[in-house]
């Protein structure tokens, strides 16, 4: 809360209390891991992780300095940027594995579905977790690439956890999901028809950590230390998948079987600017943004 924020300038010696708004999913495993490894503490950051359900809670929190940092996918951040929300990305968050069929997000269908490729999604009902966001952008892109008509794809919004039931109940034809639901659907006989992140751009940066421009101006040092800590965490996580799978038990309730099976994303420390630009272009094309996002203002 506001009473715990890091007031008092660049006092390198003193400890900064930092609250980060995250979504309790696999993507943020590195920050939990980094916290337990002491990567933050060693930089005089006393980290507190608060989990919110997406941008509705996290962005206002960061803007109002209730959270000092937040985690969000790049499309949401770009939407915010086009609306002049005063935020700025500070570190990479999570990236696609870049491997067809082995990514942490994909469009899946039921095993016996007539849909074989992304092209067949034309005219079908596809669920995404949030409309007019990264899910439908990349799915449209995959459909187009496969030669289908993305205009006719009928997107509906639905939380990830509900997609499997909806898929099996025949209420949707295909679902755009991420881990751990992806593994679980596949385990139940589901079939992947498009690795959407991979289709969109090589090594796509899906999400980043961000902060408010005010904090960036007021405490550049804190931001720098935070970025360093995050980067160390990302690197460590990327190198130690087993520890990642282990840390999941602390903040999720994913059962042991799924935990062993999920495809872990990549955690590079670079924000792949080209891929973000691609997403920006795709989104602009789909009409998600009011105006074309200005990445130079958003990315570090």
């Amino acid at each position, binding site marked *: 809360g506001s009473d715990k924020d890091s007031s008092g300038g660049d006092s390198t010696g003193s400890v900064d209390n930092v609250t980060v708004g995250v979504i309790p999913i696999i993507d943020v495993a590195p920050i939990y891991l980094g916290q337990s490894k002491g990567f933050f503490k060693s930089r005089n950051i006393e980290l507190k992780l608060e989990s919110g359900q*997406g*941008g*509705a809670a996290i*962005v*206002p929190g960061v*803007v*109002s300095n209730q959270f000092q940092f937040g985690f969000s996918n790049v499309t*949401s951040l770009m*939407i*915010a940027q086009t*609306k*002049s*929300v*005063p935020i700025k990305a500070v570190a990479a968050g999570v990236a696609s594995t870049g491997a067809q069929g082995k990514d942490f997000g994909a469009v899946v269908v039921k095993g016996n579905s007539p849909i074989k490729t992304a092209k067949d999604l034309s005219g079908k009902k596809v*669920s995404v977790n*949030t*409309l*007019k*966001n990264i899910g439908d952008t990349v799915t449209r892109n995959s459909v187009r690439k496969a030669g289908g008509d993305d205009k006719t794809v*009928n*997107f*509906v*919004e*639905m*939380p990830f*956890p*509900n997609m499997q*039931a*909806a898929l099996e*109940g025949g*209420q*949707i034809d295909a679902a755009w999901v991420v881990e751990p639901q992806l593994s679980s659907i596949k385990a139940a006989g589901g079939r992947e028809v498009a690795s959407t992140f991979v289709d969109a751009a090589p090594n796509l940066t899906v999400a980043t950590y961000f902060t408010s421009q005010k904090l960036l101006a007021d405490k550049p040092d804190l931001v720098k230390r935070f970025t360093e800590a995050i980067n160390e965490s990302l690197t460590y996580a990327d190198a130690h998948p087993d520890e990642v799978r282990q840390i999941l038990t602390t903040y999720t309730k994913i059962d042991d079987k799924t935990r062993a099976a999920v495809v872990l994303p990549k955690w590079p420390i670079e924000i792949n600017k080209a891929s973000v630009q691609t997403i920006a272009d795709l989104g602009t094309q789909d009409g*998600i943004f009011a105006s074309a996002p200005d990445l130079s203002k958003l990315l570090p």
Partner: protein
Amino acid sequence: MTVLRKVLFALALPVVLFAGWFWLSDGSESFYSPPLRTILTAFADTWQPERLRADVAPSLLRLLAGYLLAVVIGIGLGMAVGLNRRLRAVLEPVLEFFRAIPPPVLVPVIMLFAGIGDGMKVIVIVFGCVWPILLNTVEGVRATDSVVLDTARAYGVTGPARLTRVILPSASPQIAAGLRQALSIAIILMVISEMFASSNGLGFTIVQFQRSFAIPEMWSGIILLGLLGFTLSLLFRLAERRALRWYEGLRAARRRAG
């Protein structure tokens, strides 16, 4: 004269509040609470007839369907539960159990059985707004005057007539309280239901605005919700006036000393 007075009274406080808001927010820099001026501009731009048809109309239909269904279920079940002590003992814990479960958590379960179409949304609305009707009906029925009940029994007023001519009218003032409560809850649930598996609707639009950081538009949507609630409650009031004329007369006979 009295009409003028009524209009004046109805508008006075809202006008003051809006003026206050306008004045206080003017020049607001905060991203999430923009000046009312901006919001009002956004309102005019956003809620064009076409959007009203595409987003507001389907929402309203679902709202109406859900509300009416809740009224029927709430009053029907409420009368049964209110009149029968054993039934109440059996059902109350179960009902209380469901009442305490937040609709957003329950939606997935409802989706299992009702799919993701309008049916699901209507059920979510029913599920949320049936409670005030149910509870008030139960309590209203339980409070029926014993002499009234005795009279009905003595004169052989039993069966359906007992329900419709005696119990229901007697409980109707309290039922009206429940119906009134349910109306605004129905609107709230209309919004919540459209947060799941949706692609159109007023609630969906507002949530969409919120997510896409179109904050003035979001506020304009909230204002629209308020206006919607206000209009519906006005209609409700008219209906209530008609249905409960006897009650208002009974209660006001003494006060209306003219």
